[in-house]
């Protein structure tokens, strides 16, 4: 940076001081490329030796697919280590200096694996000319060479008992990829650190249990997740709220789930569809006093249905042996409430002794205009 202000690649990093040159502006960053998360170093800087400008670019590059696939051929033991030293070169956070791979590592990798690529008509990546890397112990430049505890497989690989690496997506896929079949052993969820859905045998991560999103087909991963008191109900995110606040038109759960599914229709023996509100763990029918047609529209929309509703007033309600009903209070505010159930109150007499029956229709969908006939 020839001036005191740094170009945006540095942001306001203190690493760029007055006397440094533009070249020194790239700074070390933590390695996030999944493929290279098990290296003996944690920092890198860009552009890398393949010309990628960012880790994101490296992660979607052709080379990030090529090398892991090539590793499976077992052409060179330290191929994955070499691939990472050029995909995410080592950067020394104290000196901000880059430490390249040693030339011998590059030459060994190329010598043993280039021919394997050739068999399938692919080329060794062009700009990995080994002469750009220093010889080991040459003068004052340090370089990287694999030592004993270097991992031959990347985190995206599974290591066969024989020591070979196969891609982890090949593990437990029903086809043996290791010579010793070890990739098809211990395939239970538990062995792989996963949780098994009891009915479907699907394996899911432990973090997916009780996280508010059902992952097992029968949603068992979201059951028994709340420990509410007797007068509480569980929200979808498994919090507990007093049940008297359930479907009262006021949001109590952080995820608003206490105000979901409050309005449904329930069929009785004579197949009438009663408008039903679920409030405080009790189901209520709706008294017909003061009912208006626009409320039928709103109720149908709340149930995700559309079309013109059919509203019926069912008389002699008491004969129906259903004791609970909600009313529209006569002195209702004129504002248009966003939900039907927030308008309704309990504890008032039902003067008309009748309740609302409602028939909604499904929104029309998925129909294409018929192809027009055109004379040829």
């Amino acid at each position, binding site marked *: 940076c020839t001036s005191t202000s740094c170009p945006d690649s540095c942001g306001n990093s203190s690493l760029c001081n007055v006397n440094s040159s533009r070249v020194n502006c790239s700074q070390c960053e933590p390695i996030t490329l999944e493929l290279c998360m098990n290296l003996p170093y944690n920092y890198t800087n860009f552009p890398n030796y393949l010309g990628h400008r960012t880790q994101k670019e490296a992660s979607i590059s052709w080379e990030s697919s090529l090398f892991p696939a090539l590793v499976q051929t077992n052409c060179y033991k330290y191929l994955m280590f070499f691939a990472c030293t050029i995909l995410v070169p080592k950067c020394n956070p104290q000196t901000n200096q880059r430490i390249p791979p040693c030339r011998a590592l590059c030459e060994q990798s190329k010598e043993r694996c280039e021919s394997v690529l050739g068999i399938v008509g692919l080329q060794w990546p062009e700009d990995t000319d080994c002469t750009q890397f220093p010889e080991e112990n040459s003068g004052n430049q340090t370089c990287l060479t694999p030592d004993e505890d270097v991992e031959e497989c990347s985190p995206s690989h599974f290591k066969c008992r024989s020591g070979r690496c196969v891609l982890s997506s090949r593990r437990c896929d029903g086809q043996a990829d290791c010579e010793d079949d070890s990739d098809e052993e211990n395939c239970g969820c538990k062995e792989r650190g996963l949780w098994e859905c009891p009915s479907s045998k699907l394996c899911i991560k432990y973090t997916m249990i009780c996280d508010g999103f059902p992952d097992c087909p029968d949603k068992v991963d979201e059951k028994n997740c709340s420990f509410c008191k007797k007068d509480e109900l569980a929200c979808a995110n498994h919090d507990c709220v007093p049940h008297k606040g359930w479907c009262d038109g006021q949001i109590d759960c952080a995820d608003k789930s206490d105000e979901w599914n409050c309005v449904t229709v329930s069929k009785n023996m004579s197949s009438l569809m009663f408008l039903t509100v679920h409030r405080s763990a009790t189901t209520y029918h709706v008294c017909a006093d003061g009912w208006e047609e626009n409320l039928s529209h709103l109720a149908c929309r709340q149930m995700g249905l559309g079309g013109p509703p059919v509203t019926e007033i069912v008389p002699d309600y008491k004969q129906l042996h259903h004791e609970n009903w909600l009313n529209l209070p006569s002195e209702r505010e004129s504002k248009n409430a966003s939900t039907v159930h927030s308008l309704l109150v309990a504890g008032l007499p039902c003067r008309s002794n009748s309740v609302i029956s409602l028939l909604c229709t499904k929104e029309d*969908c*998925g129909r294409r205009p018929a192809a027009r006939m055109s004379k040829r």
Partner: protein
Amino acid sequence: ILGGRTSRPGRWPWQCSLQSEPSGHICGCVLIGKKWVLTVAHCFEGRENPAVWEVVFGINNLDHPSVFMQTRMVKTIILHPRYNRAVVDYDISIVELNEDINETSYVRPVCLPSREQLVEPDTYCYITGWGHMGNKMPFKLQEGEVRIISLEQCQSYFDMKTITTRMLCAGYESGTVDSCMGDSGGPLVCEQPAGRWTLFGLTSWGSVCFSKVLGPGVYSNVSHFTEWIERQIYIHTFLLG
């Protein structure tokens, strides 16, 4: 769409184009209700601000406005909270329009599947979009018929990726018909009894579609997300209003 054909105007009335200046068409999208559109989350990477987007319906040729065209601004973008950019999982988002569309024979919603409604492998469905055709970007909407592929078979094409139950695969092994860049967010629809077209997939990712190494297209499995979609529409319509 690779290997497809030009669609007849009005044949896919739920198809929409998600546009942002200065580039115009960016992604496909699908009308599912008067005020609601589905697309994929990755279309909004780096452009999460609703104000920079608009949605265009009722067109066939991107370059020719049609009398059936309707354009709406975007009021809300709802990305799936579990969207994982690195592995392109949970790649789905809901867009709330600033006002209802007028339902016509050229602009009308597709059906959503229920959670239990799954599309079986070997079923033939259609993909549509204004994405790359392999040698050029089309102006006219393209359509292609693809066959649903099982997740196990699909996984064998993608060594470095994990195909999850949130995904759906479709295409021919030979890879002749496929979706491509610019089709993202567009529909994979299958005809159901009584001629109802139902949305089972949203174009999400795949192999580099015009390289020689081809594989099936990977789509967001809409059946997995139906409950979440209905929940979000309910919350934004009735509880946040």
